[in-house]
């Protein structure tokens, strides 16, 4: 066995690795590589390399231009005029112009199975002004929200010719205007992209080739990084970080995540609302029995952030008047007694994913100290989605990946008609706030509105936010120019391998 290994290592050493190839270990195998149909967060990584967007967001979550060079929001807020970058070509040589933008936005809106419609909900239509100018027409004055969404997959531009030719099969070979062109994909194996020499920002691209390798286990990704197989390993588990100490070849960088983990109560969805749908004191008791800080410390090496609102405590939209409450078991017991439920028993629906499984067991132990019996029911993700939508839960341990605009973290989840509002929590006051947030173009106004929304949710406790993740990216010290991004998508511009 050992001799065999040695022999193989010898021949392995002989094959030199291609210069300038960056190998990135990603956590999941992406689904369809089509900006219109892509679903999972993992797809954003290769798509970002292949497809440039109209806008981008900075690491401070500010809007910045990418394929757009200037934008202007009309006074009534019902239209936006975009100036497009000139001289940009798609990988198939087609020209990027206003017609192409119109085609793309229309494709997002009309293609069967499009997953971008919600993000473009405010868009009524487009108007080509000249080859490099396009005007977006809006249904309601939600211009800022729309532009932020165009900094995501909804703003990715594909070649109209390639899209027309390939139809539904476009995802098998995406053609865009990004810095890298798609080469090949081995499903569950890897995705390979190659530098596009016709890229408008060619001067800042220093890599020849990038490979994305889906490796589901964080420890294994880390091992790959340390052995030099990978130069970037995304989403390392905080519990693996201690291994990096003392390793001179690799390091890790962290950035707060935009999302949140929370325990959502069934407020009004079907017969199982009866435990948490009524008395607020019961929900408060559950919240007070949980020690978020102890949990973050024990489970995540104190690397995540304890939280209680739909944005993290470092966000401007966070309401500092309602900080994370301390654990208070006697108070929790008292509340339960007052509510006439001294022996509260309920079931928490948990996905089979390990992080939440561990946390659920810890919550279970914490609640037990307050006299609450929490049973655990595990379901795989697909079953869990169906169960939560049908209201087959008392409480569910959910996770939201987060969006740059706070609307993405709130409206769908808590508005009465929100598609993700499986709790069926409904509060007209909150609906009014969230609508105002959508229409606010002014940053100060947005801050005020979303702080109020957060305060309201904290008081009503339709869910208990537990923590906000931080994204840990492991990088080889050979890699220069890497900046972690809060949307956890790796930007390849400016990266260099030494």
């Amino acid at each position, binding site marked *: 066995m050992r001799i065999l290994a040695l022999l193989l*290592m010898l021949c392995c050493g002989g094959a030199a690795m291609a210069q300038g190839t960056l190998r990135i270990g990603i956590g999941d195998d992406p689904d369809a590589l089509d900006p219109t149909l892509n679903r999972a967060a993992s797809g954003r990584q290769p798509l970002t390399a292949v497809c440039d967007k109209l806008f981008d967001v900075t690491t401070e979550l500010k809007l910045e231009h990418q394929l757009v060079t200037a934008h202007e929001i009309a006074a009534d807020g019902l239209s936006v005029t975009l100036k497009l970058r000139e001289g940009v070509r798609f990988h198939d040589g087609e020209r990027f112009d206003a017609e192409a933008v119109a085609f793309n936005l229309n494709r997002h809106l009309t293609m069967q199975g499009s997953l971008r419609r919600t993000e473009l909900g405010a868009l009524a239509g487009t108007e080509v002004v000249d080859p490099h100018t396009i005007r977006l027409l809006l249904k309601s004055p939600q211009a800022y929200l729309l532009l932020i969404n165009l900094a995501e997959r909804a703003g990715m531009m594909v070649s109209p010719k390639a899209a027309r030719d390939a139809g539904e099969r476009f995802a098998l070979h995406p053609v865009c205007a990004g810095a890298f062109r798609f080469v090949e994909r081995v499903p*569950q194996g890897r995705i390979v992209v190659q530098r596009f020499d016709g890229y408008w920002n060619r001067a800042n691209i220093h890599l020849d080739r990038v490979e994305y390798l889906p*490796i589901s286990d964080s420890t294994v990704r880390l*091992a790959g990084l340390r052995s030099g197989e990978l130069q970037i390993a995304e989403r390392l588990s905080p519990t693996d970080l201690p291994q990096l100490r003392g390793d001179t070849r690799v390091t890790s960088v962290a950035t707060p995540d935009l999302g949140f983990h929370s325990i959502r109560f069934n407020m009004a969805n079907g017969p199982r609302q009866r435990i948490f749908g009524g008395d607020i004191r019961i929900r408060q008791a559950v919240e007070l029995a949980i020690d978020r800080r102890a949990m973050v410390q024990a489970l995540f090496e104190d690397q995540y952030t304890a939280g209680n609102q739909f944005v993290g405590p470092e966000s401007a939209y966070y309401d500092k008047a309602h900080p994370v409450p301390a654990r208070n078991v006697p108070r929790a017991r008292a509340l339960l007694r007052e509510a006439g439920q001294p022996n509260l028993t309920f079931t928490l629906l948990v996905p089979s994913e390990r992080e939440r499984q561990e946390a659920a067991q810890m919550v279970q132990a914490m609640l037990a100290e307050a006299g609450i019996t929490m049973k655990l029911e595990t379901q795989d993700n*697909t079953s869990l989605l*169906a169960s939560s939508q049908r209201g087959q839960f008392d409480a569910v341990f959910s996770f939201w990946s987060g969006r740059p605009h706070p609307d993405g973290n709130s409206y*769908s989840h808590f508005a009465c008609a929100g598609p*993700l509002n499986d709790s069926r929590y409904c509060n007209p006051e909150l609906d009014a706030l969230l609508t105002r947030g959508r229409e606010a173009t002014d940053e100060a106004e947005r801050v005020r509105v979303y702080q109020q929304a957060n305060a309201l949710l904290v008081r009503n406790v339709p869910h208990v936010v537990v923590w906000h993740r931080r994204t840990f990216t492991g990088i080889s010290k050979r890699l220069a120019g890497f900046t972690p991004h809060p949307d956890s998508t790796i930007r390849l511009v400016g990266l260099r391998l030494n």
Partner: protein
Amino acid sequence: MRFLLFLGQRLALTVPTLLMLSVLVFALQHLLPGDPALALAGEDMDPDVVAEIRHRYGFDLPIWHQYWNWLLAALQGDLGMSLRNSMSVVQLLLGKLGITLQLAVASMVLALVIGIPLGVLAAARPGSFASLAASGFALSGISVPHFWLGIMLVLAFSVNLNWFPSSGYTPFAEDPGRWAMGLVLPAFVLGTGIAGVLMRHTRSAMLQALGSDYIRTARAKGLREQRVVLKHALRNALVPVVTLGAIEFGQLLSGAVLTEQIFSIPGFGKLLVDGVLYRDYAVVQGLVLVSALLFIAASLVADILYFVINPRLRS
């Protein structure tokens, strides 16, 4: 002639088996809880999109109707489209088949190279230390949980010693060295189990062969022991072992589920687990059908081998 007839009979029997199988799989996965359309609708889960997806993939039809549609397409060689990444299932499977075959062949070679010599050794010197050690190895091979062995090997050889890549698969054309290194650990994990089975069967077949009349005759003729064991006994003992090997190989093609999962090898097994978890019906259905076909083909090969090797049946 008789052989062809036998082959025809066997082939005819596979048709109802496959049909039964496709019904079983179809029924089973449509009984799975969870709504694939919800999983497909993305994080935002727009209800219109969900309905659109249901309609597009025919999930709104009665189940027998869905089966009929699937069967009609399957008869024309179309196994549908993966819900998850829009690839044609046939293409997806063809892409994976190569990888799974490589792993299966590597494991099988390892199993044969380890299992048969150990079995011969154990039979030739019964009661010796070498024989005991070989039996112990075989027993361990069939008793160890493969997924655990995989984890332990990754821990020892990849994470700590950094001898082997811990996961992933590299195509041969791209980097033969990496390709080989990547297959060593998973092939070892899968190979030990089969080696154990082969070793035990080789040993018992050898013991039987060594006790038979023609071996006594061979020995009486004064042939050297080594020649008796290797030339005469082994040749006869190999008949059942080879057929068993073919069947084990058939099971390898689809049976490496957890091993592929642990080593992140993009073969049939990983495709299947992901397919079940994401309710990717077309992929699961197609995959089970193809691996069943492969299994049936392997057992057919086993029968043919049995027929070819065994001179008593040929006459």
